[in-house]
């Protein structure tokens, strides 16, 4: 999995690790030989997703009523599609009366959406970081303790 340091050329593109970074947060950095950064990104993105779901409930991921927010949320991981499917199945299987206590409203609902959207947007930054090596990023990686060891 570890990419040799000689492959790190300023201005070079790495679509494979970028796809991995979208499939699972931090996986792109793990594939590029930066395990410490990978685990930290994974922890941060999953923390934001879990707090968002915990605070706002399943209703915070909804491609029907919050399409633009959903586009930001899905940048975090395709697992968001799973949350969307689970949410849709629950809504379809419950009656309106049963569903009422589980629908988030007001601030709680908004903040739940925001948490997962921020997870997606921050993971997008991580995807860009592994997709394209800027000179600064290459220098940073060359000087990192992980690469020196």
């Amino acid at each position, binding site marked *: 999995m570890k990419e040799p340091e000689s492959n790190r050329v300023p201005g070079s593109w790495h679509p494979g690790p970028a796809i991995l970074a979208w499939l699972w947060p931090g996986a792109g950095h793990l594939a590029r030989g930066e395990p*410490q*950064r990978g685990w*930290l*990104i994974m*922890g*941060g*993105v999953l*923390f*934001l997703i*879990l*707090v968002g*779901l*915990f*605070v*706002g*409930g*399943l*209703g915070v991921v909804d491609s029907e009523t919050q399409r633009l927010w959903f586009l930001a949320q899905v940048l975090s991981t395709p697992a968001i599609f799973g949350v969307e499917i689970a949410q849709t199945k*629950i809504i379809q299987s*419950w009656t309106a*009366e*049963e569903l*009422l*206590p*589980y*629908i*988030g*409203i*007001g*601030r*709680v*609902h908004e*903040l*739940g959406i*925001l*948490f997962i959207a*921020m*997870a997606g947007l*921050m*993971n997008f*930054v*991580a995807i860009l*970081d592994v997709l394209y090596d800027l000179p600064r990023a290459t*220098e*940073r990686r060359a*000087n*990192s*303790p992980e690469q020196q060891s």
Partner: protein
Amino acid sequence: MIALLGFIPFVSPVNFFQTWWYLLIIPLAFGVSVIYKAIRLPRLDAYWFQVWLMTGQIVLVMLLIAVALALFVQLVVPAV
């Protein structure tokens, strides 16, 4: 029937935060800082110090903006 089961984590919302919603700025700022600093820092030696520093900066600046906006709405707008 299902309504009687009460709170189900990750399915039902936490309505406690309807009142205390602004406290959620702390975990939000913390999560953003964890990811940002993991990407941005050249070396990870002082990583957690940098994360808590950025978290504090975000919360403090948001607090100052909130105070400034509150003063603007309460004092400046009525005087215009």
